């Protein structure tokens, strides 16, 4: 059977295809506290001023009372004393391996206990506060064809210590990344990792590690958080790991966005949560669970990053922009080559590369691929929003703004969110109502219920916003309940917008809560900050049948909010259904078609059998029927990746269902596992493992060294890691 499926012709086709893919205070409840204040004030339609004073100033007082001291002022007397010591000459080099010479620099020796990376005593350096850590460099090479990106990430680990180590690194990847390949590279030797069930892969890794074999393990903790382990790295030597993934690019308001996240933000885990992503100080080795270790503000590591992106848009590229300093060349009008400039290589914020293509050429598109062996077809339908008639009347709205005022938002992120909130108030019209909810350790709100958008109320709201300060944990579930648990005014469209960095570890709980309470609300998520939890943002918007937007530190909250109101004022197409025009379609994701908003296309993927002759999408613009005829794409660039794109979206859909149902019989988990294995994809239930069995290293496995990372740009260490 295997021989039949794996003919040489198929082998070559499959290999070529792979090459193409390559090519979270007060503990009082919000409702209780706010209702109590409301009844005392005796306010009627408008907001009681007492409410504003209590909510705003109280929050500020809590903030000041808990104001942590800067690191320097609160440092303990026994603060680390570093010693610099070069022990390069004493490194045990393998005489016949000149490549190890490259790793000779910065070898560390025994130092003070505060600097112990693991159970062993090693480390040092330095007056410059550079902490020796195993991950020296991350090299990212991306190839973009149309709206599909294939990315190769090389993580270069070495051992700067004087005894054997196991390197452990928690890192982010895009939330839609379909990780398909994993290689362990030792000198000229490359060992392809095997995808196995997670427990099985972990058992193999533990066995190899304990017996002294060099091995690596890649585990997924969230769709966008991964853990890399590399065992038995000998002193002065190096092991690289190559990870390959692909994903579809987001398209917003005329711009495609390629995003490479570089650091996991410090997550808040509510008490009792069973599957946390902990945020710990670098020197904290007390936890064996999933945790990100952070460098103090006055520390840094040698880890840097290089990024090269090749864009073949297929149509003329009109403009390229980035959050970072880049060097770009344009050899052809539809091709751009982009590199990260040397000065921008500190991995402490998302790298975002946007490119705008010629507007008149943007049209909806049906990309298909038929597996040459099984004849199973896969499709991806990209539906761009049609033009919206100018005379379409805007319906009255019930706007609920939910803003995260936890410690991680303190500073620039919260200022941006306040800026956006203020801009939103400018867009309210007579007939609209609005509410503002803040949450951190608890939640409180502007009014007892949504208030009319009168000048008086808007003025009071501006005072409320101005008094918001950031402190405490991120109990987002309190914000969700406050935002969704009140009667819906059926005469208005209810839009709920969350402004947060999403630094929480209980995403599934949040999404489940949201889905069970959403009712008629549409949810829009605004990710605020330099390294946002994009997975949470995207899934909230999907569950809420809305859209997502991001506010990077450089961006204006006013502009983003302008776009938001333009989008929700006139949805481009609602109540969608698709005429498949004879295609025998199955397993379509998303299973519930969302609305199409101005500037935001939607992507639908599925399987099919038989011929594909294009499709017709039907929907409503206001109350008017609208149809969009979509033909098969004439460009098959990236089509070979469609099975994996389909599988990735199926896994995401199953995970969403699991978040809601709890999956008591593990049926959904089994479906995810089976899909991941069949399509060779990383998932919560599958992991890559690679072992080099050719040689055992001396002795037992060494000290575990956690790769500490900086807190994201703009995020404060004292209000996040130290307070966790």
């Amino acid at each position, binding site marked *: 059977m*295997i*021989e039949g*499926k*794996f003919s*040489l012709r198929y*082998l*070559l086709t*499959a*290999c070529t295809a*792979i090459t193409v893919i390559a090519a979270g205070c007060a503990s009082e409840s919000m409702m209780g506290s706010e209702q109590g204040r409301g009844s005392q004030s005796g306010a009627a339609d408008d907001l009681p001023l007492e409410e504003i004073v209590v909510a705003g100033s109280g929050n500020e007082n809590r903030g000041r009372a808990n104001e942590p001291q800067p690191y320097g002022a609160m440092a303990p007397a026994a603060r680390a004393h570093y010693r610099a010591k070069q022990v390069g000459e004493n490194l045990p080099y393998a005489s016949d391996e000149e490549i190890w010479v490259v790793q000779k620099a910065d070898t560390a020796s025994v130092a003070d206990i505060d600097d112990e990376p693991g159970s062993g005593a090693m480390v040092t350096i330095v007056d410059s506060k550079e902490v020796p850590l195993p991950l020296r460099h991350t090299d990212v090479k991306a190839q973009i064809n149309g709206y599909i990106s294939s990315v190769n990430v090389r993580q270069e680990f070495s051992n700067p210590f004087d005894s054997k180590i196991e390197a452990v690194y928690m890192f982010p990847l895009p939330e839609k990344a379909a990780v398909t390949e994993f*290689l*362990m590279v030792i000198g000229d*030797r*490359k*060992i*392809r*990792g*095997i*995808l*196995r*069930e997670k427990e*099985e892969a972990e*058992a*193999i890794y533990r*066995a*190899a590690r304990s*017996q*002294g*074999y060099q*091995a690596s393990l890649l585990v997924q903790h969230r769709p966008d958080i991964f853990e890399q382990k590399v065992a038995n790295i000998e002193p002065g030597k190096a092991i690289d790991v190559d990870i390959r993934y692909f994903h579809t690019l987001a398209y917003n308001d005329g711009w495609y966005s390629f995003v490479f996240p570089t650091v996991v933000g410090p997550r808040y885990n509510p008490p009792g949560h069973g599957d946390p992503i902990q945020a710990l100080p670098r020197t904290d080795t007390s936890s064996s669970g999933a945790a990100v270790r952070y460098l103090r503000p006055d520390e840094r590591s040698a880890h840097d990053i290089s990024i090269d992106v090749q864009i073949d848009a297929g149509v003329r590229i009109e403009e390229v922009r980035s959050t970072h300093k880049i060097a770009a060349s344009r050899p052809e009008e539809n091709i751009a080559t982009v590199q990260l400039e040397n000065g921008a290589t500190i991995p402490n914020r998302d790298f975002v590369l946007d490119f705008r293509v010629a507007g008149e050429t943007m049209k909806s598109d049906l990309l298909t691929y038929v597996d040459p062996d099984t004849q199973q077809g896969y499709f991806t339908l990209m539906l761009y929003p049609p033009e919206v008639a100018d005379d379409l009347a805007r319906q009255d709205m019930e706007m609920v703004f939910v803003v995260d005022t936890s410690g991680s938002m303190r500073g620039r992120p919260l200022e941006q969110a306040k800026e956006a909130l203020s801009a939103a108030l400018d867009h309210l019209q007579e007939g609209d109502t609005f509410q503002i909810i803040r949450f951190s350790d608890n939640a409180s709100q502007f009014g007892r219920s949504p208030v009319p958008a009168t000048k008086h109320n808007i003025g009071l709201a501006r005072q409320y916003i101005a008094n918001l300060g950031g402190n405490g944990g991120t109990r987002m579930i309190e914000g969700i309940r406050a935002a969704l648990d009140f009667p819906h005014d059926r005469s208005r469209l209810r839009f709920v917008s969350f402004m947060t960095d999403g630094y929480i570890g209980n995403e599934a709980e949040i999404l489940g809560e949201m889905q069970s309470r959403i009712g008629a609300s549409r949810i829009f998520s605004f990710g605020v900050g330099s390294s946002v939890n994009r997975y949470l943002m995207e899934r909230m918007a999907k569950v809420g049948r809305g859209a997502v937007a991001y506010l990077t530190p450089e961006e204006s909250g006013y502009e983003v909010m302008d776009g938001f109101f333009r989008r929700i004022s006139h949805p481009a197409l609602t109540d969608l259904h698709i005429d498949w025009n004879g295609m025998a379609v199955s397993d379509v994701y998303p299973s519930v078609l969302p609305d199409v908003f101005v500037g935001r296309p939607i992507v639908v993927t599925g399987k099919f059998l038989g011929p594909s002759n294009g499709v017709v999408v039907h929907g409503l613009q206001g109350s008017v029927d609208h149809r969009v005829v979509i033909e098969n794409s004439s460009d098959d660039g990236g089509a070979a990746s469609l099975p994996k794109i389909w599988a990735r979206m199926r896994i995401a859909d199953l995970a969403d269902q699991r978040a809601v149902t709890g999956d008591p019989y593990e049926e959904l988990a089994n479906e995810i596992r089976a899909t991941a*294995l*069949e399509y*060779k994809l990383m998932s919560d239930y599958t992991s890559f*493992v*690679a*072992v*080099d*069995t*050719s*040689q*055992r*290293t*001396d002795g037992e496995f060494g000290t575990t060294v956690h790769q500490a990372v900086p807190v994201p740009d703009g995020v404060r260490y004292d209000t996040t890691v130290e307070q966790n």
Partner: protein
Amino acid sequence: MTRGLGLFLILLLAASHAFADAPVRFASVAVFIDSTEPLAAWQLDFSASGGGMQVVGVENGDSIAFHGVPYYDREAVDQGRADRIVVADYSLAEPSELPHGRVRVTTLHVMLSGEETPQFDTRLVVASSPDGNRIDAEISIEVSEGSEQ
């Protein structure tokens, strides 16, 4: 019948638990193909009997004409006690750059379990020339358990 099924499940769980706790060891299996003509593509079938075996890595070979790392067919990797794996690679290099004669095309890294050393079965499914024609070739393996440095 229910009782019988329950007993079977208990025995199955006990067996799998015992297997999971069994001591394991690792070995590398170097795979060579010997051909008289330039080797442009190959596919092999590797399995084991008489002992537990799990493939834990697929390594590149010695020929620079094959730049990457061989691919494997995941569908052929069993979830049971012994794996069976299909491995393949191809090269688009010029015929003069392709290997001929005996060349290591890959090394399979395996984890072994159980008292017995399994019997490895390696079968060359196909070897082909640059023009896609099947060529005569022989396949052989060399097994070594990881040695201390």
